[in-house]
């Protein structure tokens, strides 16, 4: 297999991460091809975003713009947002409802399945011009992706031979996916977006890394939402590409787990406690489940704030993070308010997620200058096993073990 940039992975294996993979354009292009346009299910949206026939949304898988539609029969469709004629972006609106997608340049028009329906002057004008006799519109549809839905969540794949979503996720990750998406109708609360100046993999690393969460996130620790001494576990699928950080809220007092946190604010008492008044709403005892689904999705359940975080890489040094906040259609007004208040922790101005955006930027700034050096992943050992605690980097090691296999490194 072609190895762009002749990358040599350090001999220590998945306990090392060569910094070159965060900044090399050839590696980035290879990732777009093998990871995002390869064999996997990429998250593209929620069904409630396109509830009616003719509804559509535009999103990205990797750096490819795609249109997700609901056709006249109610089926979900997905195709590449690039005219078959001259490569123009066909759909320029993020959301809408239409029967035809008309390219602005020469007005080739496509239906909700991506099939080419109209070509102006196809027979010429006054017997002049026109397309050749053998021009067949069926040959010029927009490249289609295969789609699937599970309890209101839409995935798409460029690989028409991709296995079912359930086997892709594996048993444990399917179970936790269904924990949030249990079949109840969802309600859309809104969006938040960021352009983060770091490599896209740093976002995944961040959510697979419970070691940092109890140290960097002073706000979480101060208010007991995530701490190293809480009952918690890290679980993965057999391939290691997906992961779950599962934890249970603990005490607010200082302990051995907080001793190493230099700037814990034990005296920080909220003036308005409504910011944090979580209530139990899932059958198990977990209060936080952060699920990372290869290649582009984080399902966030932190207390009562629920969100999809979709990773959209732009170039090696930059990605967009799109947050879609939701609740359930049977939420009462108090629960909706609670979700909206807790969103203060997690958004493009998050009291907690702001730490991560800043750290990702600082990481990129460090690693891009030293492509021949490597980072170290030794916390919790050298293996890639599930753990009954969070003092570990096992999910990062598993992620890079899978990454190397896919990329041929």
């Amino acid at each position: 297999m072609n190895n762009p940039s002749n990358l040599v992975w350090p001999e220590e294996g998945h306990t090392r991460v060569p910094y070159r993979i965060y900044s090399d354009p050839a590696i980035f292009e290879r990732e777009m091809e093998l990871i995002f346009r390869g064999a996997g299910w990429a998250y593209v949206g929620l069904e409630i975003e396109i509830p009616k026939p003719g509804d559509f949304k535009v999103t990205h898988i990797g750096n490819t713009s795609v249109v997700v539609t609901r056709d006249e029969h109610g089926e979900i469709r997905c195709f590449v947002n690039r005219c078959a004629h001259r490569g123009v972006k066909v759909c320029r609106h993020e959301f809408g409802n239409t029967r035809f997608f008309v390219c602005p340049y020469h007005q080739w028009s496509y239906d909700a399945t991506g099939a080419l329906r109209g070509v102006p002057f196809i027979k010429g004008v006054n017997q002049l011009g026109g397309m050749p006799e053998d021009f067949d519109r069926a040959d010029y549809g927009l490249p289609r992706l295969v789609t699937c839905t599970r309890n209101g969540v839409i995935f798409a794949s460029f690989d028409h031979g991709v296995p079912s979503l359930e086997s892709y996720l594996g048993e444990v990750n399917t179970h936790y996916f269904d924990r949030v998406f249990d079949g109840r109708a969802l309600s859309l609360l809104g969006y938040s977006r960021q352009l983060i100046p770091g490599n896209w993999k740093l976002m995944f690393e961040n959510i697979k890394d419970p070691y940092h969460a109890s140290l960097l996130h002073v706000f979480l620790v101060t208010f007991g939402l995530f701490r190293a001494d809480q009952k918690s576990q890290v679980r993965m699928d057999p391939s290691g590409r997906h992961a779950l950080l599962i934890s249970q809220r603990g005490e607010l007092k200082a302990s051995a787990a907080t001793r190493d946190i230099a700037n814990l604010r034990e005296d920080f008492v909220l003036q308005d406690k409504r910011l944090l008044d979580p209530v139990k709403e899932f059958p198990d005892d977990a209060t936080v489940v952060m699920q990372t689904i290869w290649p582009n999705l984080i399902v966030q359940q932190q207390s009562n704030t629920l969100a999809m975080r979709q990773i959209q890489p732009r170039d090696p040094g930059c990605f967009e993070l799109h947050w879609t906040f939701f609740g359930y259609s049977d939420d009462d007004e108090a629960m909706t308010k609670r979700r909206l208040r807790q969103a203060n922790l997690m958004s493009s101005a998050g009291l907690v997620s702001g730490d991560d955006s800043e750290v990702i930027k600082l990481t990129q700034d460090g690693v891009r200058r030293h492509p021949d050096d490597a980072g170290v992943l030794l916390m919790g050992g050298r293996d890639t096993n599930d753990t009954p605690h969070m003092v570990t980097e096992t999910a990062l090691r598993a992620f890079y073990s899978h990454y190397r296999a896919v990329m041929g490194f």
Partner: protein
Amino acid sequence: MAIDVALQLELEDLYSRYASLLDDGPLREWPDLFAEQCLYLVIPRDNYDRGLPLAIIRCESRGMLVDRVRATQETIMHEPRYLRHQITNVRVVSAAAGRVDATAHFSVIEVLPDELPRILSVGRYVDVIHRRSDGALEFSEKRCVYDSVLVPNTIVYPL
């Protein structure tokens, strides 16, 4: 509508103090410009236009504003930065019985170490302002509706 010159100048002064407290400090006095029972939202324009309630900062009382300020200063890890609020186009939409509905445009320039200044956010304020018993104006509702929905990295300080 005839222009109430005194009110217009009072509003200009209120917005100037608002910008000054955010940009030059002390930040802890910024919540004093709000009523005790207030609503402060920083909301992307696409949510606002579509009627979606999600705001990236939501404070439902002066106490929550105080909490936000303290978290910003003591718990959020962020690079040092300067902000500069440009607030223009201050306009009274309606004024009656101690209540003023006003809008204004804002652009916020952010300066990070080792980087050139950049526009962090542009948008408009959609505000409700009341007169306190002592005669001073205070915000009872402030919606910072930002057009620049793709946030450059993260918004740390209030808009």
